[in-house]
């Protein structure tokens, strides 16, 4: 495949065949090496063939092979001629990350770290097959789907300030829960307020390094050694079912003829089915916002109980990294509303965007990039350049390089747990098999991913954080 080097961190697949636009990959030489080993480039090319795509099909530095769309893929579609695709959002709708700051320092929690983590593990339902704590009625679930984190705050989980520090203020207003299948609701009822398994986690972290003190301070990150809490999870079975349902509906109504991969199934965004998917997706987004809102609330309760206070545990931000959104962007100098698909990519709005909280508007939004289990995570800030370069998007994590199957062959959960402990990282998990699958060696080097984002200019480094305790579902 022809791959043109634009600069040290930018590569282009020029238009060819059915491609309507070129594909652009942001990667260092090293990251490109791994990207080339799987189907990522082929998948980015396939996305470039979809109707109404604008400018480029993008791959973020953590890009890897998905199904249909690559993970780390960003694609914008015209609202008149374009499409919307469940595969372009991903099965885990509004998988995302929430970050809480604290006034605590490493020394303040040193003696009670293990207890803190154990209490959080007790309080937050973790893994699979573990029902949520609230027994929901269908009526309440519908309300949650319509109102998202707003519902949670109205019901005593957290504060109004949390909402202003969440993308979309914790609620996508276009949500219409009436389009969700009964199955989606049934899967959603027992799982509200659960973390889930796989790559999802909750971490106690400390700030290891601050790159940009001014922006860090605005985000609530004051100094090295400060304790933070990161929550990474999504819309659970409800979101997965929404994706599954609409893939089938689109197959039956529109069909996948002519698509290079059946997972690229889509509907014109203007069509009734396209709109129904969008409104259902928004409902699943809201479920995930409510989910993270509740989990954050329980974490604060544990801090208050164990350490005496949860004052100062302000939310830094909450970002979605599997989502489609209607946003205004400039195309050839013209402002235009577009449907931006981010599948394993984080929005990275720069200064001045009206969508971001007023306190961050002069600087850009916080971009939260979780690493893999036991490695560093990063806080970046969105940039003006990202609008031009990637429809205001950057990476979302480390990106897998090794299959779960191979990870299981190579690692033992017990060993990984001991290694983490030797590094001073506590681990609480429901399954040692899950621990082996998520071994950090199965992931790309997150340091290289964020460095690339910084160099390209689609998300600039603000702070590096490292885990002190990990809870895995």
């Amino acid at each position: 495949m022809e791959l043109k080097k634009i600069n040290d961190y930018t590569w282009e697949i020029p238009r060819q065949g059915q491609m309507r636009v070129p594909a652009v990959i942001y990667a260092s030489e090293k990251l490109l090496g791994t990207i080339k080993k799987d189907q990522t480039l082929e998948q980015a090319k396939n996305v470039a063939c979809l109707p109404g795509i604008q400018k480029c099909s993008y791959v973020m530095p953590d890009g890897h092979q998905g199904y249909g769309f690559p993970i780390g893929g960003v694609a914008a579609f015209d609202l008149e001629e374009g499409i919307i695709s469940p595969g372009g959002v991903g099965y885990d709708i509004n998988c995302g990350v929430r970050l809480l700051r604290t006034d605590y320092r490493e020394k303040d929690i040193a003696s009670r770290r293990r207890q803190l983590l154990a209490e959080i593990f007790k309080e937050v339902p973790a893994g699979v097959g573990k029902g949520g704590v609230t027994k929901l009625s269908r009526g309440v679930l519908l309300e949650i789907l319509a109102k998202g984190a707003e519902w949670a705050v109205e019901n005593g989980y957290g504060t109004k300030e949390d909402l202003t520090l969440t993308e979309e203020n914790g609620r996508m207003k276009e949500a219409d829960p009436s389009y969700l299948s009964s199955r989606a609701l049934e899967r959603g009822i027992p799982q509200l307020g659960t973390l889930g398994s796989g790559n999802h986690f909750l971490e106690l972290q400390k700030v290891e390094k601050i790159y940009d003190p001014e922006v860090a301070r605005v985000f609530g990150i004051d100094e090295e050694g400060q304790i933070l809490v990161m929550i990474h999870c999504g819309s659970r079975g409800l979101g997965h079912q929404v994706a599954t349902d609409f893939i089938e509906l689109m197959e039956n109504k529109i069909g996948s003829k002519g698509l290079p991969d059946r997972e690229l199934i889509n509907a014109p965004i203007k069509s009734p089915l396209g709109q129904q998917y969008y409104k259902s997706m928004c409902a699943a987004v809201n479920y995930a916002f409510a989910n993270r809102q509740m989990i954050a609330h329980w974490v604060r309760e544990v801090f208050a109980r164990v350490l005496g206070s949860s004052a100062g545990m302000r939310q830094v931000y909450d970002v979605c990294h599997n989502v489609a959104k209607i946003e205004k962007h400039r195309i050839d100098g013209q402002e235009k509303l577009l449907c931006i698909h981010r599948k394993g990519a984080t929005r990275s709005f720069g200064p001045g965007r009206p969508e971001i909280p007023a306190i961050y508007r002069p600087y850009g939004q916080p971009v939260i990039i979780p690493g893999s289990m036991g490695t560093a995570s990063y806080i970046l800030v969105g940039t003006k350049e990202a609008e031009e370069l990637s429809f205001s998007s950057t990476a979302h994590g480390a990106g897998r390089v090794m299959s779960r199957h191979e990870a299981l062959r190579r690692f033992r959960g017990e060993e990984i747990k001991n290694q983490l402990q030797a590094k001073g990282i506590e681990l609480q998990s429901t399954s040692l098999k899950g621990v082996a699958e998520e071994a950090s060696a199965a992931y790309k080097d997150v340091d290289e991913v964020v460095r690339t984002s910084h160099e390209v200019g689609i998300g600039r480094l603000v702070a590096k954080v490292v885990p002190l305790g990990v809870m895995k579902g």
Partner: protein
Amino acid sequence: MEKGKKFVYLDHPADAKFQAFGRTMEEAFSHAALAVASLMWQPEKVKPRQRRVVIVQGKDQEQLLFKFLSEILYLFEAKGFLLGTVKDLRIKPPEKETDSYYFLEAVFEGDNLDKSYPIFGEVKAITYHDMFIKQNDGVCLQVVVDM
């Protein structure tokens, strides 16, 4: 096809990929169900205390497989049901060339989730990515699931 094997897992960077085998389509579908269940719990350890009748239709074999395997996830997450074995799986092909569906009927034997069954994984969804169903001497099918 590997002789005697019901299914094998293959490498896929993000998710889980498997191939399932059978002398017939019915057998390969049943083995595929066990491959999905085995990513989350040990189906061979699940006691046959409950029965669930599963009926799905699909406009082609791939959609039939996609929907059949999705049943396992739905029954687990919404009903707390763990699949142990698949019984009496029958597939009825379309009667006419056009405008007709494949039908599948099967009985899932298994048990309700409780503490005696360790759950070690979570399959988010079945996908069509890299899916194939090949029928020669026997049947070999391939599925990638999102984890």
